[in-house]
């Protein structure tokens, strides 16, 4: 006959077995041994019917209690073992996090494309569209319609690549490699009525022998605004806003300049400076200096004077407006142009313009 002591003894043994179980399998064996259908405690409970009601009550209660205790012991142990097992697995699975990640191969946009995009985005924000045109251009669009005098030095065989030239005197259908992206302005104005707000990024060509600062091919971004009541003040304001975003305080990327401004090193003055200049297709014309983004305008190794010459600009010459069929008494406009390579060289410290067209992968990967 099972006594209460037997049951308690059984429990003690079971408890020891639970503690000794070192994995979930062993623990399950313990559970089957004591609590399974044929388990020891189950068996005791099955024999309760043979006992007197008093014994049944006493033994039954004791056995049930022990069963409950054991069940809870097993559950506890189970959780403990699970935790241990997870911990073990985690320990075994740990990696050297300092190994390099698996490479996702990607390339790079050319630095010139990146700078053009940066410039373009700013002008898009100011309400400009992007216009394009051919690189092989008629004299008419490249020179004549832009009010370039017949004997202007830029028209010489020294300075401009010609594909067709009728004679000493310029002819409208002489063919050149465009020397600027300004002919796009003429093409746009001839194809639509004002208002016009465009920029024209693209390749331009001048007959320069390659050296660290010259290239027979380079990129320009030209801009043109023609509308009722456009003023020289609008030109200034537009370039000022562009310069702030591109080079100055509003620039997200030009950290040096921002720091220079914030530290109060820079004179808190205007962002740009205009110097009168001469271009055939604009009047009044100006060369535009931008406050040096490296030093904020106090003068440094890059700028010398605190100013960097970046743009040429001016009010569209009335002759140009007349040429495209606009009435200069009704509309006025401004135009500007900038060399992308020069800006990229200044912004990124590129020492030699030829590097842009050598396309060394070690150059491309830096940007």
């Amino acid at each position, binding site marked *: 006959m099972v006594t209460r002591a037997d049951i308690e003894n059984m429990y003690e043994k079971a408890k020891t077995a639970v503690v000794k179980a070192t994995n979930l399998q062993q623990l399950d064996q313990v559970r089957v041994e004591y609590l399974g259908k044929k388990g020891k405690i189950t068996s005791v409970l099955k024999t309760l019917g043979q006992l007197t009601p008093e014994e049944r009550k006493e033994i039954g209660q004791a056995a049930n209690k022990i069963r409950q205790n054991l069940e809870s012991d097993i559950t506890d142990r189970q959780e403990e073992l699970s935790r241990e097992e997870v911990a073990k697995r985690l320990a075994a699975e740990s990696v050297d996090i300092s190994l390099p990640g698996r490479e996702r191969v990607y*390339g790079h946009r050319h630095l010139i494309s990146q700078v053009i995009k940066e410039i373009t985005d700013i002008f898009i924000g100011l*309400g400009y569209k992007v216009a394009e045109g*051919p690189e*092989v251009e008629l004299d008419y669009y490249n020179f004549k319609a832009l009010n370039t005098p017949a004997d202007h030095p830029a028209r010489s065989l020294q300075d401009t690549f010609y594909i067709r030239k009728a004679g*000493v005197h310029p002819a409208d259908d002489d063919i050149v490699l465009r020397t600027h992206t300004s002919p796009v302005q003429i093409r746009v104005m001839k194809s639509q009525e004002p208002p016009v707000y465009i920029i024209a990024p693209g390749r331009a060509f001048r007959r320069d022998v390659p050296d660290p600062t010259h290239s027979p091919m380079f990129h320009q971004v030209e801009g043109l605004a023609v509308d009722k009541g456009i003023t020289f*003040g609008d030109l*200034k304001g537009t370039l000022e806003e562009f310069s702030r975003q591109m080079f100055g305080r509003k620039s997200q990327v030009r950290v040096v300049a921002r720091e220079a401004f914030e530290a109060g090193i820079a004179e808190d003055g205007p962002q740009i400076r205009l110097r009168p200049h*001469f271009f055939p297709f604009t009047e009044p014309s100006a060369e535009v200096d931008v406050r040096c983004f490296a030093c904020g305008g106090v003068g440094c190794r890059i700028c010398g004077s605190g100013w960097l010459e970046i743009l040429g600009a001016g009010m569209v010459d009335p002759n140009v407006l007349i040429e495209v069929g606009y009435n200069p008494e009704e509309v006025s406009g401004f135009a500007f142009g900038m060399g992308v390579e020069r800006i990229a060289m200044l912004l990124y410290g590129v020492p030699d313009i030829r590097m842009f067209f050598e*396309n060394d992968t070690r150059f491309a990967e830096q940007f």
Partner: protein
Amino acid sequence: MLVSINWLKDYIDFDLSPEELADKLNLTGTAVESVKHLGQDLGNVWVGIILDIKPHPNADKLSLATVRIDRPETLEIVCGAKNIKVGDKVPVATVGAHLPNGMDIKPAKIRGVTSYGMLCSRAELRMGADHSGIYILPDDVEVGVPLAQALSLDDTIIELEITPNRPDCLSMLGIAREVGAIEDRKLHKPSVDLTECFEKTSNVASIKIIDPDLCPRYSARIIRKVKIGPSPTWMQQRLEKAGMRPINNIVDITNYVMLETGQPLHAFDFNTLHGGKIVVRRARNGEHLETLDGVVRELDESMLVIADADRPVALAGIMGGEDTEVSDKTADILLESAYFEPSSIMRTSRSLGLLSEASTRFEKGTDPNGTIYAADRAAAFMAEFADGSVDKGVIDVYPKVIEPKKVPLRADRVNAILGTDLSLDGIVNILNRLELTAEVISNTTEMWVLTPTFRPDLEREIDLIEEIARIYGYNNIKSTLPKSGDKQGGLNLRQKLAESVKDRLVGAGLSEVLTYSFMDPNDVDKLQVPQGDPLCWFVRLLNPLSEDLSVLRTTLLANLIKVLKYNVNREQYDVQIFEVGHTFWHESGKDMPDEETMLGIAMTGAWKSDKWYDKARSIDFFDLKGAVESVLDELSIANWSVRQFTHPALHPGRSAELLIDDESIGYFGELHPNVQSDFDIPRTYVAELSFNRLIDNAKMQKEFSEIPKYPSIILDIAVLVDDPISNDQVLGVIEAAGKPLLKSARLFDLYRGKGVPEGKKSMAYSMVFRTPDRTLTDEEAFNAREKVVGRLGKELGAEIRE
């Protein structure tokens, strides 16, 4: 233009430092290249006079000079040079001087005698290379003054860049006028005090202009019995500061007056002019003239010459002739002061490749009404500094007087263009400062502005507006933004797509490059392109920089291949690049060249490098095709296909043409081994596709399609087929036979080798079966698969591999 500040002050008063002046000039349109302070490092260098020379007591080669500067006591200076004598005036560096050559002067004991300074050579002062002895100064310098002052080196030179529209600024008076306008000060134009002799100029010389279109005015004076010699020191110094070499008094005077007034002058040796005649005419074809630089020039009838009775004696406005040059023996001078048609001078100067101080002024436009003043000024100097006597009167041939222009100007227009609020008085004031006279039409804000002939650039209202803006100050104009609010910026759809394709290729591992729009015409031979192929329809430059940049590129490939080569030569072996750019061709019979935007791709080397988790793999055809497919995917182009393609530059078994519907878009493949060896590059894969046509075919309208509600059944199939059978063929049969339950099929294994008979390959496909409206049964899927197996066997002779 080099401007001496001291000289400038002869004509205009201003209270600005050279730097301030430079700044103001810069901001009003006269660009300043540099500001140079002369004599800056000549502190403690004085003019001294040698009172005594004794031998050094302890050294044979040295002597001991006693020198006086401005103090009563004298200095003892040890000296090694032998070219000094008592009474010579010499530069003396006293204790504390820091010489331009870096030497510091301290009291020094030399062989037992203390020397309190140094007598200087030109080299030590960096005033030339002459090391041979002490710099003996001219006799007329004052003892005791700083050397810089004695040599007029207490001066600043501002170098100006004069734009071609401002020929008036190629003179000291022109610059002074600018400064006057900026500072609102009056110009002092030197008055000419000329004493003429009795003889009338017109009695001895005659002048005839045959071609007044090229020479609207010719003025001349005769100066007799000149004594050729050096010009005064001050004049020589000024010429040197302006970058000109002093020659003799006559030539120096013509140059000086040119620098002063902007009017080029030429002095002929009058007695060498045949017949005492000046004839201004076009040259005759085949005529010759030996110019002052000693070159014999062949002339033609486009060129204007100055001739005498018999022959050309000068290239008008450009350079004089050797035969009539002023020499030591010259006694009588014919002084030319003329106005030539600018474009004629420019053309002749260009065609002869001959530039001079005169031609650079004439070709931009001198003042036709300034000839007499300059001639008189020079004649007066020749009387004063060459003892000449000036004949009475000027011969002045000026058939059609060039009058100042009258240009209309509206004050309202000024403000409308500039965005300013200038008053009528303010505008008139600025004009007056520029020596422009304004006649305001009463009761209006409109005026007539008289623009002097020295300002040929001022012809239109807008020219005057620029002048007003310049002097008012560009930087004083308020910044605004265009008022129009209804403008919308942005890229158009094609531009957006172009950007997204480039970004996609970057995401696919390729880097963008930019190469020249030029190419080397010989590269098409390396590409094995036959004569007559469109790639040989070159657009040729008339004036290329060199043969290898002499045509526009007909293909992107040659330049891209060269980029690979450039990198491989620099041990960068794994290069994957693309370029989007124009190609150009000129079809015979067509008037204009054509250009088109192309996408070029080039790849060589390995796809990634060896890694701890993976080995490098050489790039192959399918890396290239993958890049092409990524572009098609970016543009959502589905209706594309490839077909076998032969191109002389490509490997015949590894090249393909890309078609969209039936239109050819371009080709891609491995470079032919011969091409690789001609370019000397490793195995390379290239593509060239029409970027425009890709963009044309972009499918931008996308539409939602139902996401499957019911599960799919995926069944695999592996078949043995003959080697020449293509994936497209197998897939075609599978897709046709599997309909309608088959939703997609994908090749997941391709195998040749052990277990597969020679000439065969094993291809394994994964097929997805599904119905849209219910759950598919296994039986249905298996039946569909059986149908596929049957058709593959029947149509392609494929054996099923279980």
